[in-house]
């Protein structure tokens, strides 16, 4: 039996397809409102109405410049990162039939991060746009490793987490080793911030690096959604339904690695977004992966926006890495899951 952690979070009513459109519209509106409001917050404060005016090009001046040129690209990067991590979480949780499978917990983010840092330090002249591909390679290598070490005998919650911890530890060791060779202290401190997960100083180049991946991979995941639904019933059932199990799993695994890798390449291994977004979405729209993916992506983007706004504002003028904020919220959530969830005896 490989059901892993099965969750009872809220006393959930029967979530179903009927509620999905309402949830999607609401989530999108909340996300949009968050986007507009947080763009106005900061040292230069801009009212939401003026933010909207600036966004549609009906305003100029300092406020408009701050909104459209300084805050917006960073906010869009945050959205892409949150959406990518959330989508990767949906795919991994479905594939492993394990609620703890999230890119940051099973080591996929760590692999992507290590690859990115190695490239940044050893090949400093490489353009930002290439980073996602390198991180993708790292994510792919670690997901292959995790697959080999834990998947074959079923992915019980503890086994997956243990392998994830091992892989993450190796990843961090590589990252720290590489950073220790950096002599320029400012560069080294930037790399440490990157290690915590941060979108500080991210702008149009990073957006240009991460967005195409999201735009390409999300539709591909959507095209494989029925296979993901079937695999979530277990391999024997999926094959009985007519799914080519190995091919479908490999395809989805590569897509998850690409989504997580490109997000980590620009923001570092931001924690818990890929874990929490699918869980909240499952409470809202149920376990079918189509609605789940759409809702998670919107939630992931919104959560990242909120977390990054908090990271910017809470200790202003110090810009805390957004990964610190998601960890402060996410780590207790994970602990709560472990305590409250019915863990699989295996």
């Amino acid at each position, binding site marked *: 039996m490989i059901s892993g952690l099965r969750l009872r979070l809220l006393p959930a009513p029967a979530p179903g397809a009927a509620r999905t459109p309402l949830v999607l519209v609401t989530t999108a509106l909340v996300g949009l409102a968050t986007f507009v409001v947080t763009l106005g917050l900061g040292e230069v404060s801009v009212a939401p109405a003026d933010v909207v005016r600036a966004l549609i090009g009906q305003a100029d001046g300092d406020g408009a410049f701050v909104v459209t040129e300084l805050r917006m690209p960073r906010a869009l990067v945050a959205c892409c990162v949150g959406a990518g991590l959330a989508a990767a979480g949906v795919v991994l949780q479905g594939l492993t039939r394990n609620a703890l499978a999230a890119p940051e917990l099973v080591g996929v983010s760590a692999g992507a991060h290590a690859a990115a840092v190695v490239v940044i330090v050893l090949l400093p002249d490489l353009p930002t746009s290439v980073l996602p591909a390198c991180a993708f390679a790292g994510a792919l290598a670690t997901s292959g490793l995790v697959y080999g070490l834990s998947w074959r005998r079923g992915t019980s919650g503890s086994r997956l987490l243990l392998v994830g911890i091992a892989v993450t530890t190796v990843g961090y060791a590589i990252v720290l080793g590489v950073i220790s060779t950096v002599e320029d202290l400012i560069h080294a401190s930037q790399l440490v911030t990157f290690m915590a997960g941060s979108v500080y100083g991210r702008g149009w180049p990073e957006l240009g690096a991460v967005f195409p991946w999201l735009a390409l991979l999300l539709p591909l995941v959507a095209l494989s959604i029925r296979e993901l639904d079937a695999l979530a019933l277990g391999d024997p059932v999926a094959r*009985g339904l007519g799914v080519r199990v190995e091919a479908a799993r490999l395809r989805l695994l590569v897509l998850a690695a690409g989504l997580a890798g490109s997000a980590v390449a620009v923001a570092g291994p931001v924690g818990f977004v890929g874990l929490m977004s699918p869980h909240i979405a499952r409470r809202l729209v149920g376990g079918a992966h189509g609605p789940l993916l759409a809702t998670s992506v919107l939630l992931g983007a919104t959560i990242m926006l909120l977390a990054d706004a908090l990271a910017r504002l809470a200790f202003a003028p110090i810009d805390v890495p957004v990964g610190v904020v998601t960890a402060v919220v996410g780590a207790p959530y994970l602990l709560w899951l472990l305590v409250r969830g019915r863990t699989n005896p295996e």
Partner: protein
Amino acid sequence: MTLGARDLVLGYGGAPVIEGLSLQIASGRITVLVGANASGKSTLLRALGRLLRPEAGEVLLDGKAIATLSTREVARRLAILPQGPVAPEALTVRQLVAQGRYAHQRLLRRWSAEDEAALASALEATDIGDLASRPVDQLSGGQRQRAWIAMALAQQTDLLLLDEPTTYLDLAHQVSILELVAELNVRDGRTIVMVLHDLNQAARYADQIVALRKGAIVAAGPAAEIITEATVRTVFDVDVRIIDDPVTGGPLCVPATTVRASPAGRC
């Protein structure tokens, strides 16, 4: 639709579980595989449903080796429900049953009127139409098993393979699931192959019983011919008496020895 096996060798990497087994499943009938634990009955069923690739020999679906057919093609002719499947959290009955339509869909031709009709008839046949919007993980064991069977029915295949469909169910639900299976056979003429643990249930519901011991077929045929004291001793290593089932007149088997039935008798 015909299903059979020729010179099958089955195993999981180590010593073969089944070696050189040949079998022809009777079309339009209920065939029940029985045997002790580790006799290879589930392994055989998995191979018949192409969940397990034979190490040698072949499973023949309509005369063609099943391994040469695409899994989608197989799924349009044969549905198999493995033992004790677990549904993901918060999946509704309707969403589960709808997945039975996978093999009938294409990348760009998704949910059709035909799919909807198949879904409705599967829900109706299993009598769970009123549960359609309930999450599977909140159903009782019996209802849940009906939902899984409905998923297999939505595949609209003539062949239905079930691996111990009554495991973990209480007696009332066991009977209701077996009655459902019998109905699917009688009403729609489906060919059914299932693994059952309970010999008396096998005797009652099977047209053909295939008894396995250590990976080989010991006896195969109608219950009245197969359920004999000698065969049961060979297959299960237990002494039994066979009496007439008071309901059907078929064989009913009861263990022959117990410390509680001393010759002196008890009150």
